[in-house]
């Protein structure tokens, strides 16, 4: 087990290194010069060159990457080009907001879809099944940003329950801030609740068709008790890896939802910083987001390993 954990952590580190290197490489290739971006159209080229020098952009690529890497490992994320302040001071509070947004969404998904999955299995079949399944499909088809637009219109413009774009201070008005985040979480979770419910249900179905369940039932055990004692436990591994993936997907989707509802989280800061070519900030956010994605996958795997040791034999295929 220990060996496996170490291997996964090793893979995580390698992936992170690759991501950070690729991001750095991307800056080289993406058109747009931070210095020109900051100075605008009126600045003559000698001024742009002077600023490039000041920002250290005229140094060789590998030297800059190496500097960044050593800085990163000593806890220094660099200085933002446009704010001239340490990157970490800028993104700390934003990280908090994005984490909260993701956690609320995740909680909604878990709390609603797992019981719904079991429920829809229990009540499966029947004349209304196709309606329920279609409804499920419909929910999956609702894009988070569209929900965001609708919520902005209904609760922001018509009822003025919250003001999209004007995010209350997390510490001064926690209630209002939480409400704002909650609307974001609704956008994020609707399609994913539908997906998780569906996935939950189909896992139970395929598990129930397995030989051991049939044997258990034929031995006179109650279907429901078999479901609770054996099937749910055995479905858990697929659910965990699915949720691990969901966590990663939520994070990707926060970028758009933060944009629509004007939530000042990491995603929105990322978009703004890309637009301004504020590379130290972009680099830091990309690494944080990527770490999260990879970590979610790794954790899901590790949890599964401890639930079902057989998986270890199959390597990381699960």
């Amino acid at each position, binding site marked *: 087990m220990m060996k496996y954990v170490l291997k996964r952590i090793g893979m995580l580190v390698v992936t992170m290194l690759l991501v950070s290197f690729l991001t750095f490489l991307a800056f080289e290739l993406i058109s747009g010069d931070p210095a020109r971006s900051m100075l605008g159209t009126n600045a003559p080229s000698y001024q742009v060159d002077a600023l490039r020098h000041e920002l250290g952009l005229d140094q060789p690529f590998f030297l800059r990457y190496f500097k960044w890497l050593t800085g990163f490992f000593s806890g220094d994320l660099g200085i933002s080009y446009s704010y001239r302040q340490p990157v970490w001071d800028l993104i700390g509070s934003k990280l908090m907001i994005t984490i909260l947004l993701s956690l609320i969404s995740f909680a909604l998904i878990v709390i609603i879809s797992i019981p719904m999955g079991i429920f829809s299995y229990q009540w499966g079949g029947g004349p209304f099944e196709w309606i329920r399944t279609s409804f499920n*499909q419909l929910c999956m*088809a609702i894009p988070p940003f569209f929900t965001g637009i609708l919520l902005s219109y209904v609760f922001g413009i018509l009822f003025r329950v919250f003001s999209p774009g004007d995010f209350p201070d997390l510490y001064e008005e926690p209630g209002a801030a939480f409400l704002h985040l909650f609307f974001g979480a609704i956008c994020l979770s609707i399609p994913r609740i539908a997906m998780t419910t569906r996935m939950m249900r189909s896992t139970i179905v395929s598990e129930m068709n397995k030989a051991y369940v049939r044997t258990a039932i034929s031995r006179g055990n109650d279907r429901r008790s078999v479901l609770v004692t054996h099937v749910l436990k055995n479905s858990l591994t697929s659910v965990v890896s699915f949720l691990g993936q969901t966590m990663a997907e939520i994070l990707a989707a926060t970028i758009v939802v933060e944009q629509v509802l004007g939530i000042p989280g990491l995603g929105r800061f990322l*978009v703004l910083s890309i637009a301004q070519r504020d590379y130290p900030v972009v680099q830091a956010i990309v690494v944080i987001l990527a770490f999260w994605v990879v970590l979610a996958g790794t954790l899901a795997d590790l949890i599964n390993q401890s639930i079902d040791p057989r998986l270890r034999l199959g390597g990381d295929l699960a």
Partner: protein
Amino acid sequence: MKKKMNRYLVVGLIITGIILAITLIGVFWTPYSPTAMKYGRFQPPSPSHIFGTDNFGRDIFSRVLKGTGTTLSIALATVAIGAVAGTTIGAVTGYFGGVIDELLMRLNDVLTAFPSILLALLIISLVGPGKKYNVVLALGLIFIPSFARVTRTAFASLRDMNYITSARLMGAGSGRILFVHMLPNVLRILLPAITIGFNNAVLAEASMSFLGIGVTPPDASLGYMLSEAQGMLKAGPWYAIFTGLSIILLVFGVGLIGEGLQAENREVV
């Protein structure tokens, strides 16, 4: 049982068929010119303009017809790239395993963890702006990992099946085994994955338009229209609502087809 399962397929095909038919008509004929700006700013829906008009006084219904076409073609091309490249990677990694597998899967991880906006900007910079296939290329690349993951598992599980082993023993080459013997079986998993991928592509294209980084197609797609509509919620909410509903209907139709296909699979198994 079988009849009930197929209902999704039938309904899905009907919805998608109707959308396709309307879109096809939209290529040749729209009630008004989708670009003409002479119907009055922000007119609410009425019998003559059933979806209303936008800030330039353009007929939204005509624009939705054209936009659906753009969205459809982008999504199809995206999925084609993702599916072909993803399946190839999945086949190689799943069948051969070993170092290549490890390497490609790490690359997959990296691609998954890398924010798609940055990837899209990168592609625009490399290809140069203004190329029609920018969007498709950017989105296609993003979709490769998920296809690779799905097919890899399928190929890996088929690898040790008896009929594959016997084919190998009879001297069939790897290429022949992969494409002639394994692919048809993988297709069963691939088809529903393609419908899901198609839907994700529609949504991803819209998200990209939304972030306004310039992977915008030359003709307005539904996603681009929706991002335009967002700034006019107060003056013309119908613009956002009808465009959004069109996206939902499109995705819903294809989603049902996917559901139907999966149900068919279950029957076969």
